[in-house]
């Protein structure tokens, strides 16, 4: 009943762990898969190891948090070992879907990464959207339609096994649809919308300084949901590739809202902080009840429902 499919990959349910949240370690990814997630996205990783920014790297704001972890990563050679440890199925015997999130600053880095890991995971998500990455990475790419096109195209060509490629985009642009269409034209297999918002800043008035060591950090959590819903809704009308909705989900209602807006699946990040990893099983249950009450037999029937008059 909860199954959903994205470019040939079948998910047991539409609840996927978002990139960068408890995703640096195969053990925590397996824990979350066992707890009921339909899939997991790893923390974004790169060619070379990267320590990220120094602390403070996260700070609470109204309705969510700011983070400037700074894409810390042990580098692909080390992270490949973690990928190998992600279980193929969960404790209930259901198939796990593992999505690797990768980032780099140029086409070469991206294609090397793809070569390296395409046989270790089920899908690859391109992080061209981190709002606090070092120069040349993250949103620096995803804010430019041509660069986005180039990276997606390169990655698609680099893959020898035609692994599905998701482009994760940033809302911090004048016109996200322009970027989304570029990614689609470059044959991305799906869009992940949205990465964290802003970036934003919090100044501590007693310390009289921005709290994050990087000063700025991407905003996530319940407060950014309206922005994410808007872009998913727009992308559903403007693009033909599948959409994964992410941003501020904390309960089944939010999941339904994203699916009605046009998402085929959703990702959950920050709310784990408030709800614990039980959030996956809880939403799964609630979602099933909702569907039964509303006489839906499949997620498919719900996708994009709010566009139908």
């Amino acid at each position, binding site marked *: 009943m909860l199954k959903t499919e994205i470019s040939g990959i079948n998910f047991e349910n539409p609840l996927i762990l978002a990139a*960068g*949240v*408890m*995703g*640096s*370690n*195969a*053990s*925590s*990814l*397996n*824990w*979350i898969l066992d707890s009921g997630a339909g899939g997991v996205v790893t*923390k974004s990783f790169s060619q070379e*190891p*990267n*320590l*990220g920014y*120094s*602390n*403070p*790297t*996260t*700070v*609470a704001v109204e309705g969510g*948090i700011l*983070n400037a*972890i700074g894409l*810390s*990563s*042990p*580098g692909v050679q*080390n*992270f490949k070992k973690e990928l190998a440890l992600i279980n193929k199925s969960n404790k209930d015997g259901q198939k796990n879907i593992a999505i690797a999130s990768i980032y780099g600053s140029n086409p070469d880095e991206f294609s090397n990464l793809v070569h390296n890991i395409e046989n270790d995971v089920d899908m690859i998500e391109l992080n061209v959207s981190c709002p606090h990455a070092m120069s040349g990475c993250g949103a620096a790419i995803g804010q430019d339609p041509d660069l986005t096109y180039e990276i997606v195209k390169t990655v698609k060509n680099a893959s020898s096994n035609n692994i599905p490629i998701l482009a994760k985009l940033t809302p911090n642009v004048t016109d996200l649809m322009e970027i989304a269409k570029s990614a689609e034209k470059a044959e991305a297999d799906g869009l992940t919308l949205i990465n964290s918002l802003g970036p934003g800043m919090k100044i*501590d008035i*007693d*310390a009289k*300084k921005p*709290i994050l*060591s990087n000063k700025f950090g991407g905003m996530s959590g*319940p407060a950014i949901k309206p922005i994410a819903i808007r872009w998913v809704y727009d992308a559903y009308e403007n693009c033909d590739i599948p959409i994964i909705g992410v941003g501020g989900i904390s309960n089944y209602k939010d999941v339904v809202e994203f699916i009605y807006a046009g998402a085929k699946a959703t990702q959950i*990040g*920050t709310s*784990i*902080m*408030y709800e*614990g990893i039980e959030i996956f099983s809880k939403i799964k249950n609630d979602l099933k009840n909702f569907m039964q009450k509303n006489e839906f037999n499949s997620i498919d029937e719900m996708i994009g429902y709010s566009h139908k008059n």
Partner: protein
Amino acid sequence: MDKIINNYEILEIKEIISETNTIKTFIFDWEMNEDRTPLPGQFVMIWSFSKVFDEKPMSISMIDKDKNEIGITVKNIGNFTANLHSLSAGDKLGIRGPYGNGFNTENIKDKNILAIGGGVGMAPINCFTNYSKELGGNIDIICASVTKDELLFSNSDNEINDNKLTDKFNKDKATKNIGTVNVFTCTDDGTCGFEGYATHRTTDLLKYKSYDMVVVCGPEIMMKGIFDLLKDKKIPAQYSMERYMKCAMGICGQCCVDKKGWRICVEGPVFSNKDLKEIQEFGKYHRNASGLKEKY
């Protein structure tokens, strides 16, 4: 959502106590509100925003509910801690917390407890023993360090600095005042108390006395030693773990450990021996800020 304490409070350092050449205790005024009243074994995040700009986890080493104070006890081992040591009373730090699960102190009354602290690992142990004393626990502390000058929180009416145990111990054992705390010092170089490792001292003590519970904090190698030592004994034990931390709120995943994936900042930092068995990396390796494994 409001329950999570993730906002800083900027507090003046009320008092600084030099504990050893390399260790200082910092005292802060702390309102004991519902969400904020700490338990021994919990930690806070300390944000330094002048000179050195960084933030690190520190165990709570002192809780005074009457005076509304808490303390942290910091060993000067690097950039961040050196900076803390350079501060004076009146200087300000950001504090958020308390975080994590503290030591389980249920049904502690009249129980024989062995508390083992190595180096600055005595910080949460000190907090625990003061707390448990009030609950009527009967506590023996093994206070271990490399050398005499580095012994932390060893001062006590019942400080036991003999290298050999037997007589003195038996006498104390006989007294058995409720809430009595015996401190058994132990140094690698034998400059005070027992000469040798905390593991050896533990083995000794276990010969003379049976304990209902053991709590441990110290270098992971030391904790691993104690863990192995107690493996076959049926004594419930609790260990306070450390891992590199970023968020301390259970989101970044930096502090997750193999193979259960548990977060030290949420599911820990204190684990029972039963749970610790599941932490396969315990005593073997930890991850640095990039996520790279580093062997012990």
